[in-house]
């Protein structure tokens, strides 16, 4: 069996944020159409469809019918929470490599926001459940905000990480968002003082430590590099990938809050890609919280373990013009929250060189991360420009 190198040939994104009156499958269908058109293909060219969705649970393999797709060679719904988007691209890449399918649409969509409903209710209401989860929720730990706050506190106590360190990440990403017209916080800068003055959600997290909540969808088209070269957009090669799912986090003394799956997946993804860390030009990490970005950057090795707080707060480190090009679209904190598709989207934009005012000069190699659960699930992608 001869392997074909995979590449991302199409990218589609719907309107993001407080976009009401549409379901997740409707967002997904639009995103797929946009991605296919972006590639210069037709829906009839699609022979594989991988999908996932967020909290509303309305996404499913009926999307094939919604899109009118027939005779697919690959079709499934996947769920690895925030790690899913990068995972789907990994499985699509393997399907292309093996010849199982040729043109695979990969899509994620969600519609948690409802008109005249508080954002906090969009997630919290669904997080209360029976069983163990119900006991935890009734104990006052009813949202991911609190669970990640517990993780962040461990890091703070062990390594001396401070809220000021988190604030520098929030401010830097907001600066990037000012260069991204589709960011929900485009036109709304943030100072460190405003960060500290924002209300607490779950200490140590302020409001601006926490990601946005968004309605919308994002899709990519994965095909072979050879085929992508003949299509409309600059191919984005999928050079390497890995996953890491520690398991049983938080049930007994372990690295909960101190080490993420990035520490394991990062080196393996880089090895597959034949790339070293210092060759990475752009880093798009999953940033459901400022802390998650900090932890992930430590675990990939961009900053020393335990020193992420002070290192990332150094002047000239983050933000536009900074040494580390991290979350260049504003990320989940300041652009939009499409779970793992947020870093994937910006990674593809940057690798293509289509970032407009926020485009970084060197963008040959892009690292993308996905993170799901409460640091339970992790995925890494290494993307690259066509040499």
């Amino acid at each position, binding site marked *: 069996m001869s392997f074909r190198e995979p590449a991302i040939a199409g990218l589609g994104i719907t309107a993001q944020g407080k976009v009401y009156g549409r379901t997740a499958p409707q967002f997904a269908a639009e995103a797929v159409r946009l991605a296919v058109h972006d590639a210069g293909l037709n829906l009839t060219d699609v022979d594989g469809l991988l999908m996932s969705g967020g909290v509303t649970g309305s996404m499913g393999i009926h999307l094939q019918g919604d899109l009118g797709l027939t005779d697919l060679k690959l079709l499934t719904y996947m769920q690895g929470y925030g790690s899913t988007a990068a995972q789907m691209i990994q499985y699509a890449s393997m399907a292309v490599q093996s010849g199982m399918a040729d043109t695979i649409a990969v899509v994620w969509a969600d519609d948690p926001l409802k008109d005249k409903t508080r954002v906090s209710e969009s997630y919290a209401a669904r997080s209360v459940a029976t*069983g163990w989860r119900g006991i935890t929720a009734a*104990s006052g*730990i009813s949202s991911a905000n609190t669970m990640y706050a*517990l993780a962040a506190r461990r890091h703070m106590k062990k390594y001396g990480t401070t809220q000021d360190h988190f604030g520098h990440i929030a401010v830097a990403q907001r600066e990037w968002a000012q260069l991204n017209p589709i960011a929900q916080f485009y036109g709304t800068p943030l100072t460190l003082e405003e960060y500290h003055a924002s209300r607490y*959600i779950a*200490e140590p*997290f302020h409001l601006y430590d926490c990601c946005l909540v968004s309605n919308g969808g994002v899709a990519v088209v994965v095909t072979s590099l050879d085929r992508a070269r003949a299509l409309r957009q600059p191919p984005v090669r999928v050079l390497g990938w890995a996953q890491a799912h520690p398991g049983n986090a938080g049930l007994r003394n372990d690295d909960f809050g101190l080490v993420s799956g990035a520490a394991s997946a990062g080196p393996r993804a880089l090895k597959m890609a034949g790339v070293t860390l210092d060759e990475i030009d752009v880093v798009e990490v999953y940033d459901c919280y400022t802390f998650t970005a900090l932890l992930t950057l430590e675990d990939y090795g961009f900053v020393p373990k335990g020193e992420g707080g002070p290192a990332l707060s150094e002047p000239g480190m983050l933000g536009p013009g900074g040494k580390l090009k991290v979350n260049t679209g504003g990320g989940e904190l300041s652009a939009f929250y499409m779970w793992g598709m947020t870093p994937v989207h910006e990674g593809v934009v940057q690798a293509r060189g289509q970032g407009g005012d926020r485009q970084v000069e060197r963008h040959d190699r892009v690292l993308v991360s996905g993170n799901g659960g409460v640091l339970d699930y992790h995925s890494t992608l290494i993307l690259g420009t066509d040499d």
Partner: protein
Amino acid sequence: MLGIPVRRDAATAAFLDGTARDQFLLVRDTQTGTLLAPQFDTTIDPDRYEHVPAAGTGTVVSWSVVHRRQADGTTSRHPVGIVELDEGPWWWTALDGVDPDADLLGLRVQVAFAEAGDETIPYFTAIERTAL
């Protein structure tokens, strides 16, 4: 505590039977003697695992203070944490009677029980202050 009614399922039934008796049940591996978290699924080998009461004491290894906006516009603060039970397993729980502005790492705590609808769930209160 949120006052949310807890609904049991098959996985939590034995644990909630214990809390109804004011017992915090762990799972014991009868082959190794290891004490496992309550969430451990004993049905994979019912003859090997048994439920045993924990001492009910532990140490805070992480904490957060949840802020909730009330209907009158005020905000209430609710300490929660991860407690390392003296037997080893961790338990994510409400912390009652603790100073939300204090450094709670290393705080010694003991279990108490509260009604949550038709069920009873554990929470933890401070015993004494010791450093880790």
